């Protein structure tokens, strides 16, 4: 854990007030938008790479916290990108943080939205095209591989003690076997954290 913190501290946070950096960041999110297969969760590891390793806005622990917040709050979990935007500009104050958050969310949504609009308008032609069939069947297994990589990456990022990892595994099992709302798991685990059973 100390090793991770040291490497995070050594890296200089990228500032969005620099135009070159801003354009680079925008470019990254705009292009990721087109690769959000399988409902967008496939991008989580990339978000981690950008926010923690490449642009150094957040520590590992902060990224894990924000991911948990986005999962706990109502609405699609891809809104995590807005939270990353907050983190990227938090040093400039809450006003700029909010502007960045809305900008980041727009950047991740607009390209996929445009593709979706074109797809809706031409669906009648697309529906029976062999391209559509191959795309749908071929990208399924790729999504599967990405989701496993993402799950492992988030587990490593959470970086909790042994009881914490056990809780993660139990929650994973319960998510697959039961239809209990995940908010309950988060609430119980939050209490265990408050009592000091789970820590990082």
């Amino acid at each position, binding site marked *: 854990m100390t090793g991770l913190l040291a490497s995070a501290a050594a890296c200089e946070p990228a500032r969005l007030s620099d135009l070159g950096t801003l354009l680079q960041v925008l470019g990254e999110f705009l292009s*990721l*938008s087109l*690769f*959000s297969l399988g*409902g967008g*969760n*496939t991008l989580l*590891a*990339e978000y981690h790479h950008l926010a923690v390793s490449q642009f150094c806005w957040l520590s590992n622990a902060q990224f*894990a*916290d924000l*991911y*948990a*917040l986005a999962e706990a*709050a*109502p*609405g*699609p979990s*891809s*809104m995590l990108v807005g*939270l990353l935007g*907050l*983190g990227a500009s938090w040093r400039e104050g809450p006003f700029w943080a909010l502007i960045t958050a809305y900008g980041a*969310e727009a950047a991740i*949504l607009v*390209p*996929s*939205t445009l593709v*979706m*609009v074109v797809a*809706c308008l031409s*669906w009648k032609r697309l529906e029976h095209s062999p391209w559509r*069939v*191959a795309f*749908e069947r*071929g*990208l399924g*297994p*790729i999504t599967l*591989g*990405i*989701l496993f990589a*993402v799950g492992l*990456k988030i*587990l490593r*990022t959470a970086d909790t003690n042994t009881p*914490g990892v056990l809780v*993660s*595994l139990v*929650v*994973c099992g319960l*998510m697959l076997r039961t239809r209990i*709302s*995940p908010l309950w798991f988060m609430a119980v685990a*939050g*209490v265990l*954290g408050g009592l*000091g059973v*789970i*820590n990082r």
Partner: protein
Amino acid sequence: MTEPALAPRPSLPELFWGMLQVALSSFGGGLSAWSQRIVVEQRRWMTNEQFLTGLTVARLFPGPNQINMAVYIGADFHGLAGALVALAGMLLLPFTLLMALGLAYFQFHTIPVVDRVLAGVVAAAAGMALSMGFKILDQYWNDRVALLLAAAVFVALTWWHVRLIPAVLVAAPLAMAWYWPHRSAPP
């Protein structure tokens, strides 16, 4: 059972309020079920069949599924403008709420109690992330090529640290070539 007649095509403000209602109703989960209930049953903007086609399209193309569904509904009635209005209606409330939470987080996360509770919540959230792959594993269980592809992508991302975009750009054409539909025998 007879299908009730469809309502007239919604205006842009109606689209916005309809999507806002979907977002509000789904606080606590079940977004897709709520959007079906409101769009098909209450407001009768679409038939159930149209709605299900929309879900297929939303799942197929990049982007979060529920957001793509809003885009589909909006685009179906008013093209790009409709899509953007539906998107705004769907996201406005949850996004604003999440940003308020986020601001509170950055303000208070260094307080030890907050950090301790969050460490617990993070452990549960990691379990949720871990379950995503297992959730769709079943449907590929009998397809060896699919499992091999998934394993290759996993290894590339996890051990070789390949970034997502190059990994997909290499794997997708191979997978699409393998799964290209064979011409079915003429009837």
